[in-house]
Each structure stands twice: as C-alpha cells, then as structure tokens.
C-alpha cells in the first residue's frame, strides 16, 4: 500500500518540481501544466510504441518544453497576461494531444504483432519499467527506478540554480527590472524558466504513461492543483528557505500528498472525490498562515483587554 502510494508520488514528483519552478521561483501562475502533462504523455506513448522507451522519456521532456516555449513567447513577446497565456496554450494543446493519439482519447502501449498463424495479437511495448527489473517485486523496482529519475532531477536542478543562467532565472522571478539592469535579457530567462518547468511536467506525464502503460487525455485535468498541493505541503514542512530546500520539499510534498490520498481510499472514499479533496488540501494549506495570524492577534487582544481592565 505504502509502496504504491510512494510510487505514485514519485511519478508526479517532477511535475511538483515544475510547479515549484513556475509558481515559486518564477512567481508566475502557469496554467500550461495540465496541457503539457498530457502532451508529454501522448508524445511519449508514440515513441514508446515505436520501440524506443528511453528516447520516449526525452521526447516527453521536449514536448513539455515546447509547450512551455509557446506560453513563454505569448507572455514575453506578445505581452499576454501570464494566466491567459497558459490557458491559451493548454486549450490549444487539447486538440494537439487528440491528434497525437490519432483522434482517440486514449492509447495503449502495445502494437499489433502478427502471430504464426497470421492471427494478430497485440504485444505490449517495452517500457523503461520493464527493461529494468531489479527483483521479483515489479512495483518495488519501478519505484526504485522512478526515485532514481527523481533524485537526478533534483540534483541537476539544485546545481543549475547556482550557475549563472540559473540565478538569472531566479532573479527574474524576484525582480525582473534588476535582471534587465544587469544587462540580461529577462524575456529570455523567463521563457527558459517556463520551458524548464514544463519540461519537468512533460517528464512526469511520460513516466506515468509508461508506468500505467497507456496514455489518456483525461490524465491532465487537475494536475496543476495536485502540483500546487505538493509544493504547499512540502513548504508547510520545510518552510520557505533556499532553492535546494524548496526542490526537496516539493518532492517530499508530492509523496505525502499521495499517502494522504491513499489513506482516503482506505476509508472507502470513492475515487471521484480526489479532485475535491485536492482542492480542499490546497485551500487549507493556503489559509493556514492567515488563520495562525488571526489566532495570534486574537490572543494578543484578549491579553491586552485583560490587562487593561485591571
């Protein structure tokens, strides 16, 4: 049970990293995410079926980055509001994703192989999870592989955000004017940042695709809220500190989010309640600081009144 929850959390961890980069580092509400997740998934499905499971992962990343590029250009070159830019890309991607899947809403990772007698039976495509079997327990070895990918992402990002282009992207979210006056093209750093975020989201889509062995257009809806929930849960645990801590906390948040969901299933909550539950978690986490402040103010006031009446 726990392994399956952690497995899910790990699959969605790169997406949480992407959401962290967009919302926390770039300070931009990027709604491309629901679309780029599925775009990574559908492109990955095609390449996997064509027989290149590893390449398919990179194709998923590239697809996500392409989606990010479109949103970035809408924001910087055409000066469209960031929220609207994301919505436009996401909406457009729906059609694109449909077309990638050849006009279907889902696609299994298999290919019709002709058997000896001319009868064709579908053969499952190879995935990275099938290629690397570490032991008898398939679920565990899949988890280990996902964890490796996730750790690699975190490590690479942590290093990247200390390099010159990396701090330029961080500064863009912090104070864009200061970036320009440091003679850096802030439009470029912003676009690259959005591409990076959506590339990670695309990777998540690709990982889910190979793990569940099909691509489905419906998988993207609500992804943004899931990602936000992960980032916020992580932040509640680790606080708002440096970038590296932030990256780790997003990943941990993604795991905890899945454990919470798993617990909800255990008490027989139907699966369609997931979305509402996610929305509630995000709302609760967002309200928490305000509630804390209010209760402190209330307590201070009560103490003050008591002392005043003395």
């Amino acid at each position, binding site marked *: 049970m726990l392994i399956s929850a952690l497995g899910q959390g790990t699959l969605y961890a790169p997406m949480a990293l992407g959401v962290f980069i967009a919302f926390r580092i770039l300070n931009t509400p990027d709604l491309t995410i629901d679309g780029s997740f599925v775009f990574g998934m559908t492109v990955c499905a095609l390449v996997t079926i064509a027989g290149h499971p590893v390449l398919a992962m990179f194709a998923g990343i590239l697809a996500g980055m392409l989606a990010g590029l479109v949103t970035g250009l809408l924001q910087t070159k055409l000066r469209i509001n960031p929220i609207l830019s994301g919505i436009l890309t996401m909406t457009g991607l729906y059609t694109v994703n449909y077309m990638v899947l050849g006009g279907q809403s889902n696609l299994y990772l298999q290919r019709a192989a002709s058997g000896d007698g001319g009868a064709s039976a579908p053969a499952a495509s190879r995935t990275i999870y099938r290629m690397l079997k570490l032991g008898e327990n398939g679920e565990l070895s899949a988890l280990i592989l996902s964890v490796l990918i996730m750790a690699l992402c975190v490590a690479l990002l942590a290093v990247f955000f200390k390099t*010159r282009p990396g*701090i330029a992207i961080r500064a863009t979210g912090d104070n864009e004017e200061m*970036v320009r006056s440091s003679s850096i093209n802030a439009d470029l750093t912003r676009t690259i940042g959005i591409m990076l975020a959506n590339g990670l989201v695309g990777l998540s889509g690709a990982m889910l695709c190979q793990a569940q062995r099909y691509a489905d257009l419906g998988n993207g809806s609500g992804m943004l809220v899931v990602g936000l929930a992960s980032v916020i849960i992580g932040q509640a645990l680790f606080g708002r500190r440096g970038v590296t801590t932030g990256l780790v906390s997003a990943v941990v948040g993604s795991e905890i989010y899945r454990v919470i969901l798993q617990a909800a299933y255990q008490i027989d909550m139907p699966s369609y309640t997931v979305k509402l539950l996610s929305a509630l978690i995000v709302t609760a986490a967002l309200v928490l600081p305000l509630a804390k402040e209010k209760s402190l103010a209330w307590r201070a006031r009560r103490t003050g009144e008591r002392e005043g009446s003395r």
Partner: protein
Amino acid sequence: MSAQLSISHLAKSFEPGTPNEKIALNDFSLDAEKGDFITILGSNGAGKSTLFNAILGKFPPDRGRIVLDGEDITYQREHRRAIDIGCLYQNPLRGTAPSMTIEENLAMAYTRKASKSFFAVNRRDSAHFRELLATLGLGLENRMKIKMGLLSGGQRQAAALLMATIARPKLLLLDEHTAALDPATSVKVLETTKRIVAENGLTALMITHDMGMALGFGNRTIMMDSGRLVMDLRGQERIDMSPRGLVDLFSDRSGHELSDRTLLALR
C-alpha cells in the same frame, strides 16, 4: 575631446493626440564630459525621470539622439545598454532581488563584467565582493549569505549602489536615490556615492530636490522645467551660487516659482 554622454534634441510625449497629452521632454540637449558629476534640479513633473528612462531605453524617444562614449544607443535594447549604465532609484526595493542572498545579488550585477564561470558565486568574485561590501562600513561583508530582503532600506540601497557601480559603468544615473532614507543613512549613502564616483572616475547624473545637495555635490548643476533645460551652472559661477540665489535664478529662467517641495528643502 568628445563628450562621454551626448544627448541632442531629445523629445518625448506621453499619450500624444489625446487631451491628456503630456510633453515630458521638449528638445532637450546635454553634453557630459568624462568624469562629470552633474546634479539635476527641477520641480515635480519637469521630466527628470523621463530623461533617465530615455537614457536607460525604457521607451524609444520621439525624436533626438543619445550617444554614449561614441556609440549611438538611442534605439539599442534596454538590457544591451545596461552593460555600460548603472542606475539607482528612490525606492531601494527596485535595485535588488529580495529572496536571493547579498552575494548572489552582487554576482548578478557583476555578470556584466565577470569572467565566465560555471557557478555564479565563486571564490575569486566572493573575495572581491567582500572587499567592496567592507568599504560600506555596514558590516554586510560578514552577512553575504543572508537574503537581501532581510536588510533595512538603507542597507539595501547601499548594496544596490554597489551593484550599480560594480562593473564600472560608463554612466551612473541616480534618481533621488537617498530621498526615501532617514537623514543619517542618507548622508552615509551620499558619502559612499561620492567616494565611488571619485575612485572610479565615473560620469554621473544625480537628480535631487535638495538645493544644498545640488550645489554641494559634483561639478555641474542643471535645472529642468517642462522638459527643457533652463539652467546650466558650472565653474566659478556655480561656486559663488547660494541655494537662495538658485531659486531666484530658476524663477527668472522658467517664468514661474519652483514647486513647494523644492522650496521646503531650502529651510
């Protein structure tokens, strides 16, 4: 010798063709020699900040030319010309990135001149930053790893001043950069400004509403009104000038009184 900064016939209107049309720069010309430190006076809305924004490339001017060290930058992109121009605003928050460390902020600003290195913060640059911070006398050299957002306004402005000058710009623009600070901090930042400008032989323009400051700093004082240059003081004439005399000269040249805020600064 040709001028370090040469502005000729610069013009800029906001919302042209509407009833709200505002001529912010009106055939404005100015030549600054290398090493000139020019203070700029003018009442609210005279076009001082607009002049800076035109030099910085925030918008293309309607007419005119801006030449910096022999290079025509009139239509050059904002981030390109920023290699050679440092700028500081009234609001200390504008010049720094709050959630990055002091060290990272300086590293960002230093991108203009730094040698290529993989990590933005490296040992050699850090040592350099530490020395520079020590010259501020604020103890910031021992707090390089803390976030910029934790500093006070004055400390942030001092750090921003370092950032604006760290790459030895060909031109330094100061837009009332001490107006938001308390008197003591203001004096400290001004002293630092003076020292940095002198040590690096920078060419600088400084906007101020303080007559005493305008005459006490730099080697030349100009006054703007309705987007035009109405007064240009230097040499002996400037040395002999008193703040009171400056006010009279202004009304004489522009045909109206100076704004209240500038007069207040006289007391």
